[in-house]
Each structure stands twice: as structure tokens, then as C-alpha cells.
């Protein structure tokens, strides 16, 4: 029994324990305890332990995609993770009418969770399970296209069964049919389209219209009150367009040119900040006079504040999308497919579009939307006409090496 003590605890720990018992009150100070456990931890951990760790290769060698056991027929449920405010909601904030209707029709219970706030953080959250080949506990997630592309590239997404998706297949808008990262939509379907445009506060600009990236970067009257998005593809894409390059097929040199252009804006203090969603508050207050902004936000802001205006640059604008995806090893794939298809029925798509104000990726929804709100049906940020669609561009998909190099350069630009 005497051996027990000296074996299991280091001398420093013993000393600390001992002093705590003998020296009376306050003898066990935080410092001595920290020191003692630090020494202990190092001994336990040891340097040898370091090399035992490692992060396994993410990419799975897969022929037909990851297989999973589909429990859809036994378990009538879906776990659906989505972004906040990305679903219609009843006036008492307790129900999601379109989801309730889905459950009534199919008997499938939807556990709807708004736990996605940020693509990169959400990726950090689900990565350990996906990398370990485990179920994430989610059957359906909504991810922005570049992250959806990454999951597909890594073999972490389930291939969808087109025979379960008749409405989705028929009604998907042509603009979204052939992204280079998922041609023909084998793995994903868009939940919304996200137009990236220029927004400005007419009161803050003194009534002046702001309609190009060049003006954002060069107009002295906007100095220190210009915002760009911290989402690389939107900010760089808009800048590439302004430089006359095509974001769908740019080169490394083009990317560097765009970074250089923006860096000048940072150095001359023309650009105030690179923001996430928090630009909306700054724009309303006038701290930002003009910025690169997302379509849905613009529609929302405009309905509350008539000073907020937007412009589609003559050089074109970017459209990205948030996409429904079934993560690998999901338990209820065919239930999830039913839900995807359900949201491609025209009346349902119209109800959703009327609530979330982002671009509706469903073709032929205009009449249904006009029944709910004629003004929304005329909103080109929700339902762009053909001339507008012609100006829309998508960012090309990147290889892993490119993605790392570009994100590194972009991080440097935004200061971190």
C-alpha cells in the first residue's frame, strides 16, 4: 500500500498533495497544483505518444460511392440540418408549415435543426465522423457549393437515386443543372441560389449610385466605408469579373491579379472590413456606404429600409448555391430523397421562396409565387429573368492544392 502512492504519482504531485494536507489552509495553491499536474501530464503523455497520433487520409477509395444501410422503411424519420432562417415558419414561430405538410403527406417525422451557421465551422464539426466512416446523425444537410463539392470529392456524400426525384429532375432551373463539381446533380440539389451583388446605402452615399467593383475600390467618396465579403469565392469572383476574367476558367495569374487589386484597396484604407453576415447591420447604420452583398439579405433589408439599394454590375455577378446533400452513412437516405423531391413541387417551392427571399432554383415557380405575393414574383433577385441569368457566373471548382493555396492568399489579404 505504501508503494501505491509513490508509483502512481510523481514526486512533484506528491509534494503538492502533501503540502495541501500539512501546511494548513491555502497551501494547495493554484500554481503548485498546475505545476504538479503539468509535470504529471508530461510524464503520462510522453513524447512517444506524439508520433502515435496522425490524421488518416480523408479520401476513401470508392468505386460506387460509400454504401450505407438505409433504414428509411422501418424508421419514418429524417434528421435535417439547415441554416438559420432558411425555412418558412408560422406566425407563432412554432411550426414550419411546409415541413408539417410533408409529414402529413408521407408520415415521415422531420427533426429539423438549425445548427449550421458557417460552412467552415460546420465542416469542422462533422469532419471527425465523416473521416472515421461514421454516421453524422444527419440525413440531410444544406451546404454552400464549394463545401458540397469538397464532400463529394472526398467521397463523403451519398449518391442520390434519380428515380426518387422526379419533380427535382424535371423542375430544376437550367442555370443549376451542370455545376462542374456535380454535373447532372448526382449527389446534390440546390436549396437556394445566392446572387452576389453590390448593395449600397443611398443615404450614406449622398444619393450616388454604386454599380461596379471598380467604383467600390476607387471612388474616394466611399473611402473607409466599403465592405467585401469574407467568402473568398464571392469577393474574388466579383473582382475577377470586374477585371474582365471569367470566374469559371481563370488561371493562377488571374487570381493573383484579383488579390493584388483588392490588396491595393486594403492598403489605401478604401476597404473597411471583410465581413460575414454581419455586414447587414453596418450597411443599415451607414458605417458601410457600399458593399458586396448577398441577394436574400438585400431583399430583406430593402423591405425594411428604402435607402438600401442594389446594383448588378455591368461586368456580371456571381451566383452560388446552398445545396441539399445526404452525408455518407446517413440512415434514412430515401426519406431524405422524398423531402428533396417535395421541395421541388411548384407550390411548395413558391411558399419557401416567399419566405426566405433567396433565388429560387425551381423553374416555373413564378405563377405560384405571384399568388402569394406579386411583388416577390417580379423580384429579379428571387426569380431572375433570362437577361439577368445571362450575366450570372459561377466560380469554378478547385483542386485541393488550389483551394489551399488560394485560401492562404485570401486569408493573408483579409489580415489573418
Amino acid at each position, binding site marked *: 500500500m505504501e508503494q501505491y*502512492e*509513490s508509483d502512481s*504519482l510523481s*514526486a512533484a504531485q*506528491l*509534494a503538492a*498533495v*502533501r503540502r*495541501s*494536507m*500539512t501546511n494548513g489552509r*491555502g497551501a494547495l*495553491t*493554484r*500554481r503548485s497544483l498546475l505545476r504538479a*499536474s503539468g509535470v*504529471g*501530464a508530461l510524464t*503520462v*503523455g510522453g513524447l512517444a*505518444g*506524439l*508520433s*502515435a*497520433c*496522425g*490524421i*488518416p*487520409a*480523408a*479520401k476513401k477509395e470508392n468505386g460506387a460511392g460509400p454504401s450505407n444501410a438505409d433504414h428509411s422503411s422501418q424508421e419514418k424519420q429524417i434528421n435535417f440540418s439547415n441554416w438559420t432562417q432558411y425555412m418558412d415558419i408560422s406566425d407563432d414561430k412554432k411550426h414550419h408549415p411546409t415541413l408539417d405538410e410533408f409529414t402529413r403527406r408521407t408520415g415521415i417525422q422531420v427533426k429539423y435543426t438549425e445548427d449550421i451557421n458557417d460552412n*467552415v*465551422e460546420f*465542416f*469542422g464539426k462533422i469532419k471527425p465522423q465523416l473521416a472515421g466512416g461514421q454516421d453524422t446523425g444527419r440525413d440531410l444537410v444544406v451546404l454552400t457549393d464549394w463545401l458540397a463539392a469538397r464532400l463529394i*470529392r*472526398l467521397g463523403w456524400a451519398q449518391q442520390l437515386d434519380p428515380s426518387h426525384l422526379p419533380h427535382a429532375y424535371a423542375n430544376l432551373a437550367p442555370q443549376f443543372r451542370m455545376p462542374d463539381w456535380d454535373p447532372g446533380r448526382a449527389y446534390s440539389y440546390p436549396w437556394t441560389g445566392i446572387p452576389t451583388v453590390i448593395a449600397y446605402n443611398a443615404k450614406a452615399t449622398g444619393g450616388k449610385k454604386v454599380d461596379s467593383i471598380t467604383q467600390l475600390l476607387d471612388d474616394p467618396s466611399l473611402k*473607409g*466605408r466599403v465592405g467585401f465579403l469574407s467568402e473568398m469565392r464571392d469577393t474574388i469572383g466579383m473582382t475577377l469579373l470586374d477585371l474582365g476574367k471569367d470566374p469559371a476558367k481563370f488561371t493562377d495569374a488571374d487570381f493573383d491579379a484579383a488579390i493584388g487589386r483588392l490588396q491595393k484597396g486594403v492598403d489605401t*484604407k478604401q*476597404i*473597411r*472590413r*471583410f465581413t460575414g453576415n*454581419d455586414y447587414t*447591420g*453596418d450597411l443599415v*447604420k*451607414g*458605417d458601410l456606404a457600399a458593399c458586396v452583398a448577398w441577394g436574400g439579405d438585400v431583399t430583406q433589408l430593402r423591405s425594411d429600409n428604402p435607402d438600401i439599394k442594389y446594383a448588378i454590375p455591368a461586368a456580371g455577378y456571381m451566383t452560388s448555391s446552398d445545396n441539399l446533400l445526404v452525408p455518407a452513412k446517413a440512415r434514412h437516405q430515401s426519406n431524405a430523397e422524398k423531402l428533396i423531391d417535395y421541395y421541388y413541387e411548384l407550390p411548395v417551392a413558391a411558399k419557401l421562396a416567399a419566405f426566405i427571399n433567396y433565388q429560387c432554383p425551381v423553374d416555373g415557380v413564378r405563377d405560384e409565387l405571384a399568388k402569394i405575393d406579386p411583388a416577390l414574383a417580379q423580384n429579379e433577385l428571387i426569380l431572375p429573368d433570362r437577361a439577368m441569368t445571362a450575366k450570372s457566373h459561377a466560380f469554378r471548382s478547385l483542386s*485541393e*492544392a488550389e483551394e*489551399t493555396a488560394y*485560401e*492562404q492568399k485570401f*486569408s493573408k*489579404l*483579409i*489580415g*489573418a
Partner: protein
Amino acid sequence: MTALAEAAPSRQGDLPVRKGSTRKRLVPYWLLLPGILWLIVFFALPMVYQASTSVQTGSLEKGFQVTWHFQTYWDAFKEYYPQFVRSLLYAGTATLLCLLLGYPLAYLIAFKAGRWRNIVLVLVIAPFFTSFLIRTLAWKTILADGGPVVHALSSLHVLDVTSWLGWTEGNRVLATPMAVVCGLTYNFLPFMILPLYTSLERIDSRLHEAAGDLYATPATTFRKVTFPLSMPGVVSGTLLTFIPASGDYVNAELLGSTDQKMVGNVIQSQFLRVLDYPTAAALSFILMAIVLVMVTVYIRRAGTEDLV
């Protein structure tokens, strides 16, 4: 003699040997067990894991292997030393401001507040009832370009001075170093006040009377009696403020611009955005090492063992 006594000879001379049962002697270890386990699972193991990550190389697709690539540390430091310097500068300034603002308040609560003491203490803690993020966002409204604060500072020509010093930009406070330091100061102020209050409150008021009896002026009393006795509070308050502030990234993200990014922002960006886990881990360890060295030197100089 028991093993305990052998392991570390007593400083206070020999104590009477206790002849308790084994069970009784094991009690302290049982009491320590939850804490030690907690430390191992949530502190030691993650540290080992991060230390391992920091010497790995690879990519997300191919996986990361331990290659003992210590070069990462040097590269990371070389690339991001401005952010390190900035973090320490901002955290240091915020700590100093917290001390200057917090000491008088803690003093007031401890000695002068009387029956208001509990209410004032609750007011100090009250901001904790809202989230850190919300409190920081509130500063964006307070310091808005067209807001009353900026307007007042501008008409008093305070902003002219601060812009000349490089703390602000023209007629704005947001997206400048001053906004970030203000945010840090505000967010960590209670961590300074509470330890200060605890150690001030412990001071026996008869010591003040005695100082008066010995013809000490109030200033001398403060210098010779009150302040030295409050040192444990000063030390723990500054540590509780400085350490989290130097790793903070929320204030720099929301209140700063590209030139105010701190090392926490770099770690976040490397970890989540660039997916360069080794660099992120190495940066965390460098920050930890710097803070540890600074804190060690500080504690040695302040010479206090009894921290709270």
C-alpha cells in the same frame, strides 16, 4: 515513516506521524481523482494531440503523418509575428486599462459601498447574463460612425489626437485598434474586478486605523498597506484578463479591420479556412509558450505564491 513523508521532507520540521488507516490516507487521492481525470481528458490529451498535429505534414485528402517537421513552428512564427506582437500589445493595453478602471471600483465596493455592496457586485456580473458575442456586437452600435459617442469624441477633438497616434482612423472608431482594445477591456473587466474585490475585502480595516494612528496620510496608507495587501488580487486579476485576451479573436473580428487581426484570428483561419492544421497547432503552441514565459516572469517578479 510513511511514503508521503519520505517523498518530500517537511519544511516545518518533523510532524507527528499519523497512524491512520490506509483508507483514510487514500482519501486525498480520491478527492483529487475527478480533477486529475478531468485534466487528463480535457487538457493533457488534447495537448498531446495538438502537439502531434503541429509536427505533421500532409493534406486533408492524403491524410496527415507525423514527420517531425519542426520547421512549421519557425515558418508560422516568421509569417505571423506581427499578429503575435499585436495580440500581446492589445491584451497588455486592455489589461492595464482593466486594472486602472477596475481597481477604484473594486476598492469602492470593498470599503465604501456599504449596504449597496451586493447590488454593485451583481451589476459587475450582470453583463455575463448575455452572451459574449451579443455584448461585442453591442459595441458596434455604441461606436457607430454616426453615433453619439463618435460625434462627441469628434467635437471634443479627441479623435484628432487618437488618429494622430494611429489609434483611430479619421472620424471613426470602429475598425480601428482603439475599438478592439475597448472591446477587450469591456469584455474582460469583470475578471479583473472580482479577484481585486476578493483580496481588498479581506483586508482588516483595523490596519487602516492603525496606519492612521501612526500618522500615515491616506495616500501613504494606500501605498504601504492597502496596495501591497491587494497584490494577490492584482496578480490573479491581470492573469485572468491577459491570458484569455491574448488569445481572443472575437473582438478583432467584429470591431477591427484587416490591420487589427490578432493571432487568434490567424489560428481560426488556418484551422477552419485554409485547413492547415499543423500551422494552426504550431501557432497555438507558440502563443501558449509566449504567454507562459511572460506569466512566469511576471509571477516571479510580483513574488506572490498565494494567488486568490
